[in-house]
């Protein structure tokens, strides 16, 4: 039985959803998983991860972004120009990559200046170091502290340590539930498909966390009870690379004879692997900053952390008993393109079957794409 029509999982197939539509709290959009969600939550905001689900062309956005920018970001801009993101009461951007960080200016100069759009949407930016050092951490902590002060001013709230501690608990619980479900993918007969796992991660980033936790508990029960999937004729794949926000993509991979048993994606394991330390004597804000800054696995934007990312990948290959690795990047994504280039060589040196492809965010030539993936899967013994 596939759960893709489960009311919670199907949140992943569109942008607005019933849990945020009727909510009294302010909903704020963020582009990157390096934005401290716990802090936003403690300011009584609902963080919503911006994505491009369902967008099929970028005609409007193409006026403002040149053709060699990432089609994921262009698609989000297209949706914003169509008014899909008008429900946002705030926008959070950081310098995660060159494409997405410029959304700070383009939302300000174009999206929010659209005719007929009269809402004042506050925007926030944090500058994140590109290397992992003690000095870099201090800088990052400074940015997060400043963000806290700005949130208090702009949204007229008080973010107390108690509130932060509560949200840390809420988010740690959320990550734990996600990990428990994701671990069921490691089994010889996994309890969920890669597509279901992706839908879960997307839905989880689109609703208030207390609702997400309730739903994850429900689904954990269902997955545990469910019979393992029959995957005898399928290859166990680890999926790595650029953002995937569209279940059609994973469905395509899985309908080609694969099951995605693990990933290193930002709608996936990148955000759930580590918790915030609850026992430390440090302030809650410091603990939030520490987890995020030193997060493992990191994004390729962390220039000096490729080796740790490789270790993560090697570890996933082992624990999920992976047959092959699918490296993918959205065309023009330099960060994942280069990280994948190194992974390809490093994994081949370890005799791991690996396939490296580029794609567009909205894939129109399914057949050609599928043929290539099938050919790769055939090659795996």
């Amino acid at each position, binding site marked *: 039985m596939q759960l893709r029509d489960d009311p919670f999982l199907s949140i992943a197939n569109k942008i607005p959803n019933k849990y945020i539509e009727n909510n009294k709290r302010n909903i704020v959009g963020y582009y990157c998983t390096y934005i401290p969600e716990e802090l936003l939550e403690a300011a009584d905001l609902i963080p919503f991860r911006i994505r491009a689900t369902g967008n099929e062309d970028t005609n409007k956005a193409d006026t403002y972004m*040149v053709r060699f920018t990432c089609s994921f970001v262009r698609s989000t801009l297209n949706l914003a120009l169509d008014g899909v993101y008008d429900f946002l009461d705030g926008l959070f951007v950081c310098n995660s*990559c060159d494409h997405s*960080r410029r959304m700070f200016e383009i939302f300000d100069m174009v999206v929010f200046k659209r005719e007929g759009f009269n809402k004042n949407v506050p925007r926030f930016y944090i500058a994140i170091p590109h*290397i992992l050092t003690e000095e870099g951490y201090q800088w990052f902590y400074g940015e997060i502290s400043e963000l806290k002060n700005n949130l208090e001013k702009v949204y007229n709230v008080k973010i107390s340590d108690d509130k932060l501690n509560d949200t840390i608990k809420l988010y740690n619980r959320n990550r734990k539930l996600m990990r428990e479900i994701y671990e069921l993918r490691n089994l010889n007969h996994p309890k969920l498909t890669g597509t279901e796992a992706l839908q879960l991660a997307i839905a989880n980033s689109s609703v208030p966390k207390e609702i997400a936790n309730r739903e994850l508990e429900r689904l954990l029960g269902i997955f545990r009870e469910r019979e393992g999937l029959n995957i005898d004729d399928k290859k166990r794949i680890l999926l790595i690379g650029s953002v995937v926000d569209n279940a059609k993509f994973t469905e395509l991979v899985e309908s080609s004879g694969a099951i995605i048993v693990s990933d290193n994606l930002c709608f996936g394991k990148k955000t759930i692997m580590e918790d915030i330390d609850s026992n430390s004597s440090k302030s809650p804000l410091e603990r939030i900053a520490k987890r995020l800054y030193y997060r493992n696995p990191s994004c390729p*934007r962390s*220039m000096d952390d490729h080796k740790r990312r490789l270790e993560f990948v090697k570890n996933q290959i082992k624990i999920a008993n992976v047959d092959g690795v699918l490296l993918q990047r959205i065309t023009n994504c*330099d960060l994942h*393109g*280069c990280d994948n280039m190194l992974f390809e060589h490093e994994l081949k040196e370890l005799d791991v079957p690996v396939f490296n492809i580029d794609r567009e965010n909205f894939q129109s030539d399914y057949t050609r794409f599928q043929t290539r993936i099938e050919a790769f899967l055939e090659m795996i013994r």
Partner: protein
Amino acid sequence: MTNRNVLSGETENKLIPYEMVLNSIGSTRELVERILPKGEIESLKIGAKAIEQIVRTSVEKAKQGLPVIGHHFAFQREYLYCFDCVPICIEGTSYLLSALLPDGVERFYDVMLSWGHPFHTCTSQKGVMGMTLEDLFSFDAIITPTAPCDNTFASYPFFEYKDVPLVIPDIPYLHEEKSYEYYGEQLRLSLEKLGKIIGQEPDFEKMKKHIEIENQVNSVQLELLELRKAKPSPVENMFNAISAGVAVFASGTPEKLDFYEKYLEIAKKRYKKKQEYGKEERIRSIWPYMLIFFDLSLCEYLDREIGMSVLFDIFNYNFSNTVNTKGDLDTLFFDMARRGMNFPMMKESTEFYYPFIENCVQLAKDFSADCFVFTSHLGCKQFGSVPQVLREALREEVGIPMLIIDLDVGDKRFTSTKIIKDKINMFSKTVL
């Protein structure tokens, strides 16, 4: 004090691309000196000489066994003079060779492409990466800041994969006082780290001397910029390209100062006589971003065939601060950081683009520009959403048009010179 090749007992010098630069720049200089009459492309004559001298010294020093340090163009070469070393600019070498070699450096781009380096990643790094893969370069260490773009922090880990130690001073993508303090500290820590790798103590007194030369260069550059307000502009288009090369290859050396001083004299003479270069100046253009590097003859084409002055490109209007070398080390590094973060391309990349747009509008007015030409380089994603907004600002606030050309400034196969010329030609007809 020795480089890896000497330490490992390898006698063959692994600086082949630099020798290629030396040979090609040497023959270019000889050729232009011999065939061009006085007054023609003077910038090329004196610029080629400056670069040739610097590269010759580098090759000799490497042969003596000094460590070879690769650096990003955005890491100021003069800072490396705190060591006895041979600094080699990664981006500068790729692009100078792409300009000088008849077949460009496409062969090395292809080497990297087939190794898996994405086609859309900047060719300025791809060239030297390909040469390194082919074992033509051997670096003892590489230093790069974490700017100006994704390409930088995506591509440079390749060198680490090739066992070259990488030193990375981090740059914040934010222009505030605290950013200069942070980056200043990063610079100091990085130079100390680099010193440990090559077995040398950084000599900051020595470095100051080279920084002082750059301080002097700065004021000559500003004078030259001022002269370009004149109609007709007394500066030839080729100067822009050559000065970018000299800036990268000869930074912090007397050769660079000499280049600018000599050219200032030439420009002043033309200015006094209201004399222009090439054909009558009919269109005054500003290129807020880069020129193309794979075919420098475009500069002459614009001057002579179209009568379009390129008043300046990004490397020629955007000068960072001077550095106070008389204060304590904290002041020195703070100023060095400010200089680094305001270096052409670094400034635009580590800052929101509002100041860039305001600056362009102001420059258009101050320099009586008739149009802008924006070279939208395949690698530079940080500028992917700027062109249209800039075009609208120029149209609304100054009433001038902007041509946007998608290209790869280092690879003629992406958009050829012919297509570029055709586009500019057609555009110039709408401007006149």
